[in-house]
């Protein structure tokens, strides 16, 4: 009797341990498989060849709806661009960008996120799990999909525009007892990293495009013309027919 009870106790204990172990698992699957597979071949530019990069705009879309982008995301993108060592300095949105010289590169960033949490399917699975008193937990997977497309548009000082794009997506698969808000952050972090790696890889290929010596400063479209009015010879008042500005006479 005692041996029988001991045997069943051990079997039950192992069973519970196995169920708890498999019921708490989670995994992240990325497309492309590894964000670190592509190496970024950075070339060291001479400091006088590097020009400043100024953030011009930053747009974030989530499932097609415009969102307010966070400064953390902007900082993360700028940090990755900084790692390429292509630019002398990076000026974030809203920062003072005066006295940077004529040769600057303007950056426009767009992030298009697509989130598919499979909410209704998760709710249905939840009802099934509740109905089974959680006994099916080790056998039912939940999924959360996240995809991102990061676009970086760089406009050179001479007006030449080049667009770079990094695309990645991922899925986190988890069991009920393995769910945590951190896994969503981890998934988003991995996908964003994959996008940025792809983006900076493309950017580094165009290193020569952003060297200061690659193009001269374009002729400015704003011209200053000074018009000096003649002193009127008569005392009659004159009326100008066009809105002109005349400098004050000495």
């Amino acid at each position: 009797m005692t041996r029988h009870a001991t045997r069943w106790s051990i079997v039950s204990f192992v069973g519970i341990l196995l169920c708890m172990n498999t019921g708490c698992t989670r995994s992240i699957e990325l497309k492309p498989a590894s964000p670190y597979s592509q190496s970024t071949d950075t070339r060291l530019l001479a400091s006088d060849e590097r020009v400043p990069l100024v953030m011009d705009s930053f747009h974030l879309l989530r499932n097609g709806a415009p969102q307010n982008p966070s400064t953390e995301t902007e900082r993360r993108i700028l940090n990755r661009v900084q790692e390429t060592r292509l630019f002398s300095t990076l000026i974030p949105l809203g920062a003072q960008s005066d006295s940077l010289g004529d040769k600057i590169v303007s950056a426009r960033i767009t992030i298009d996120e697509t989130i598919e949490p499979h909410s209704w399917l998760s709710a249905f699975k939840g009802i099934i799990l509740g109905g089974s008193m959680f006994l099916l937990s080790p056998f039912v997977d939940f999924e959360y999909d996240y995809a991102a497309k990061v676009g970086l548009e760089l406009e050179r000082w001479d007006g030449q525009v080049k667009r770079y794009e990094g695309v990645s997506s991922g899925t986190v698969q988890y069991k009920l007892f393995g769910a945590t808000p951190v896994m969503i952050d981890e998934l988003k972090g991995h996908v964003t990293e994959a996008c940025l790696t792809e983006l900076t890889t493309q950017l580094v290929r165009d290193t020569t495009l952003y060297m200061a010596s690659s193009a001269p400063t374009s002729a400015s479209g704003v011209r200053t013309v000074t018009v000096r009015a003649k002193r009127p010879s008569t005392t009659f008042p004159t009326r100008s027919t066009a809105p002109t500005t005349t400098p004050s006479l000495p």
Partner: protein
Amino acid sequence: MTWVAHIAATVMIYLIMTAPIAQADDGSPTITVGTQEVGMTAGYMFSHRLTELHTTKQHGPAVMPSWMITLTDPIGDSWYRGQISLGAEMVYLEFREPIVTHGIGFTPRIKYTFVALGRLRPYAEFTGGPFWTDLGGRIREQANEFNFILSGGVGVSWFITPQLAFNAGYRFHHISNAGTAFPNLGLNASLPFGGFSFYF
């Protein structure tokens, strides 16, 4: 016992006094997939005799510690925008009438929380599971001790911080044995409750 009540009252007053500061700093709670909730709820049960055959006027206190996990991000774009959580609950009932007896059960619990109102979050919930009580067999409605308990109700959570919420609501309880023994008239009761939840 008095000093326990004093401490509880002091803690309550402190939480209420500091609530506006927490709201100004943190705003509405951010509850996402995987957010867990641990709660403690207590209430008092009042019987409903739905037929002439029901004679037992059971009533007494109830205590319900619970755990839940959020399954979905907010669903929908209108007033019904909300999230689904799944969890489990222990329910302890003390029947003071007709004789002092006890009941304990374990029930899965599913909850839909409306999130459109920010820190004030109404919800609807449903629980059901096995329930043991020594009241069974001593009354004419229920023949045996092993029963099932089903409950459905509505409530509202007020988040005083993004992690802490006070809850209040109403549940309708039904206890019966699913036809495993006769008689099986079932015990029905109303249960107004209050409690708190901690989110992490």
